[in-house]
């Protein structure tokens, strides 16, 4: 099927809400991180949201690293 429309793709094929819930922004040692939930207590770092170049050199928050959450802010 070819669909000709001026509407943006998101308007034609809305994404399920659960896709949005997968990713969350958490604060980890004062640095904001975009994380992807993998299990109830673990999440994977997707992106570091910081303006400090130093924060990007932190081993523990390299994208792809797993973080264990003592209290899960992902719920």
């Amino acid at each position, binding site marked *: 099927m070819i669909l000709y429309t001026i509407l*943006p793709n998101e308007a034609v094929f809305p994404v399920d809400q659960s896709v949005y819930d997968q*990713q969350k922004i958490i604060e980890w040692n004062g640095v904001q991180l975009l994380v992807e939930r993998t299990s109830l207590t673990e999440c994977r770092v997707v992106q570091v949201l910081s*303006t*400090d*170049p130093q924060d990007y*050199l932190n*081993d523990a928050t390299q994208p792809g690293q797993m973080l*264990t959450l003592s209290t899960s802010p992902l719920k």
Partner: protein
Amino acid sequence: MNSEYRNENPGQDDPKKDDQSKSTLVDKIQQLGQTNVPSMDHSNIHCLTIIGQIEGHVQLPPQNKTTKYEHLIPQIVAIEQNPKIEGVLILLNTVGGDVEAGLAISEMIASLSKPSVSIVLGGGHSIGVPIAVAANYSFVAETATMTIHPVRLTGLVIGVPQTFEYLDKMQERVVSFVTRHSNITEEKFKELMFSRGNLTRDIGTNVVGDDAVSYGLIDEVGAVGPAMKKLNELIDEYKGKQEGDIVQ
């Protein structure tokens, strides 16, 4: 005693880090292909990366790479307030996005009292143009491009003539912002914006690195090296001015 312990085992004082440290080495080899990332002291220059789409009122699905203005604006406020931060480097590789969100970011950058330098890497299209020129000094990589085109709207429109006028005003705001913050003339910018034959079946111009400089849109061709040099120069100048103020 405490500090010694921390120095020897960085991260050990944090229970969250504990579990990871065992597998960190393996993970790092898998992810980065190397065993350690370099470290340095706290930087006096902070870096704003504006990548992907500039997200406005509509949240895009997570597979889209977006820059959210509600994230950037508090960061810009933090940069302005933190006395340890002396300058900001803005990296752009954006396809454009929401006009009002983009203008909000541009205005915030333009009104920063601290020196700012922007670099357009890859692309600084549409609303990326005002963000690039908002900095005190702008650079464009030789291969980077900037698409200049009129403001557009997709979706359902209620009240066509009113919406048209509204968009016309919005476009005027973009044009006036760019002409105020760069050396390009309004005539030239509008000429680029409405020229035909440059983009396939569309109006506008795709401006490459050198051309952007020759039109006066961007100050210089270059990337990180020259940009850092310029930023350090601006920081010294700014500091000198501040010290002068104190003497008076």
